């Protein structure tokens, strides 16, 4: 087995045990794992966002790869700006445009400007420009989602709830199933009626609604817990695998070291009593 594999196993075991040590209490191992995880992931996502989104989808559409002999009119000027950027960084802005077979689409200048406005927040005198970008994102999101919500959460839901209670060779089981579904939907919807006080008959209907909601939440909870248990089993399988001789008993060694360190730290530094503010 290569050194890389063994080293990887030790790092995996250390980080897994360090994160699990949080179940005991906040401790230096958890702090190390937490800070490594947050720092590495922030850098990772930043890199991914730039190279997978901004670079191909924005720069790639503004300045796609070109043949210098074919440039005419506006593009002659446009690619002069690009050549200036090439001087700034040739790895981000390689010569002759961004590769990737994108078609030029100058509408993306708007997106580029909105992005620059966000960066303007770093300069106090023009940081108000950032509000335009925020306003665009919020407005666009609300407008874009309303149609989807109306289709899937309202009309499709109505369509799915209109079920027959009898006829078409339906048995008693089908009738009960459909009745439960219809009553559950209508009473559940009634629970979210805000402008009527939930008293008397309204209170009873709304109570039935909340019972339905709680039953569905309970089922959903059980289902999710089952999924989490299988994730835990997967993690334990990895720990067991890495406790074998070929990995240098990584799990056992690290577990002993960590438990011993935590015990010593605990003995050395008793937990301070919580301050009570009168």
């Amino acid at each position, binding site marked *: 087995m290569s050194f890389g594999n063994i080293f990887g196993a030790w790092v995996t075991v250390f980080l897994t045990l360090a994160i699990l040590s949080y179940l005991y209490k906040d401790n230096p191992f958890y702090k190390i794992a937490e800070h490594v995880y947050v720092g590495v992931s922030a850098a990772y996502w930043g890199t991914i966002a730039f190279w997978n989104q901004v670079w191909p989808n924005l720069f790639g559409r503004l300045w796609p790869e070109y043949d210098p002999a074919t440039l005419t009119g506006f593009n002659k000027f446009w690619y002069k700006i690009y050549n200036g950027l090439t001087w700034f960084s040739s790895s981000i802005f390689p010569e002759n445009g961004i590769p990737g077979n994108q078609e030029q689409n100058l509408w993306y200048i708007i997106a580029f400007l909105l992005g620059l406005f966000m960066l303007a927040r770093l300069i106090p005198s023009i940081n108000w420009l950032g509000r335009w970008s925020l306003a665009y994102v919020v407005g666009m999101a609300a407008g874009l989602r309303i149609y989807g919500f109306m289709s899937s959460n309202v009309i499709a839901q109505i369509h799915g709830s209109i079920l027959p209670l009898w006829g078409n060779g339906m048995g008693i089981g089908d009738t009960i199933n459909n009745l439960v579904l219809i009553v559950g939907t209508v009473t559940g919807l009634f629970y979210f009626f805000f*402008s009527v006080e939930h008293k008397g008959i309204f209170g009873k209907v709304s109570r039935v609604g909340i019972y339905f*909601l709680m039953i569905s939440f309970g089922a959903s909870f059980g289902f*999710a817990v089952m999924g989490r248990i299988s994730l835990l089993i997967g993690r334990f399988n990895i720990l067991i695998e890495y406790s074998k001789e070929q990995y240098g008993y990584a799990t056992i060694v690290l577990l002993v070291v960590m438990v011993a360190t935590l015990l010593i730290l605990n003995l050395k530094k008793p937990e301070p009593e919580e301050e009570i503010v009168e």
Partner: protein
Amino acid sequence: MKNKVILLMVILLSIFIFNFAFGNELNIEVEVDNSEPEGQLLNMKVTGVEDNSTFKVFKQLDGTTEWIELKSIDKLSSKIYIGNDISTIIRVVTYDNEGNILNEAISEPLLTKAKWFNTTRLTRFLFLVITAGLILLYISKAKKKHDIFLRPIAGLKAFEEAIGRATEMGKSVLFIPGIMDLDQVETISGIILLGHVSKMTARYETDLNVPVARSIVMEAGREIVRESYMSEGRPDQFNNDMVHYLTDDQFAYAAGVNGIMLREKPAAVFMQGKFYAESLILAETGNSIGAIQIAGTGSQAQLPFFITACDYTLIGEEFFAASAYLGQDPKLLGSIKGQDMVKAAIMIIIVVGVLFESFGAEFFKKLFEIG
């Protein structure tokens, strides 16, 4: 001899008839689909492709002789997008295992046109107009008279109580606006609630900590918190670091927020926004430090965890209505009333639909079909 010839003819005729009736004559039906407003859509159905043969679909544009292969078509019933106002011919060719052409079929020239309206989406359009109309009507009513009743929601009453408790204990308030970006309605709603919470923390001079998972949410959060502190006359208490970025990664963010909870031990934790699998990790940690926790989300799968581990949970619509409750803005109160009317209409539609469906009249349900 004569009988043998007749028998042979009968056999040949039978084979021909059998082939005609059940054989694999390649047939292509292509029709212009009028459901898309942009036009450009053809519905293609191919019959007669043998099980062991493959097929390819080509198109030929008006005025050209070249057949262009449509590589994305691998089903016998497919939708094909073509350019508007360009006459197009579709050709299907079947091949045997060795790549020899078995058969081919060619459609008539087809033409698509762009349209202003997509009639198959009329129900959705009408529903949207009626919903918007009702909401606008009740907003205008609310502006005229401000006595719109809204039933009490326990979780919302607890907002001020939780911040008051944190103030009394001299501890901070932690606000978690979910892990998604500002293009999610829940995140927008969470940020609006952050505005209300930050007004209270400004009023009570309590520390506020808002770790976020998205850069745009951080900017929006800072903007709204700054505005709240200004409106409460405490701009000196505001600093940008109140709203700070951790990471985009879901579980790294959860680990980071857990660390903040364990070290700072906030007295009140607000989880308002869009959450996924990290919800239980956050809520359990908040519970373990003894903080009063108020959660709110529209994420159906995460509600059970919040209900289990938090003191108060705003379920779905309650969460979206929260800003109207807290702000008491007539426009928002009117919109809640308008939405209630829409809900009442939906309940009536369902009940009437069930009766129609039970009596065998299926036309009513078809009105709400989404293609």
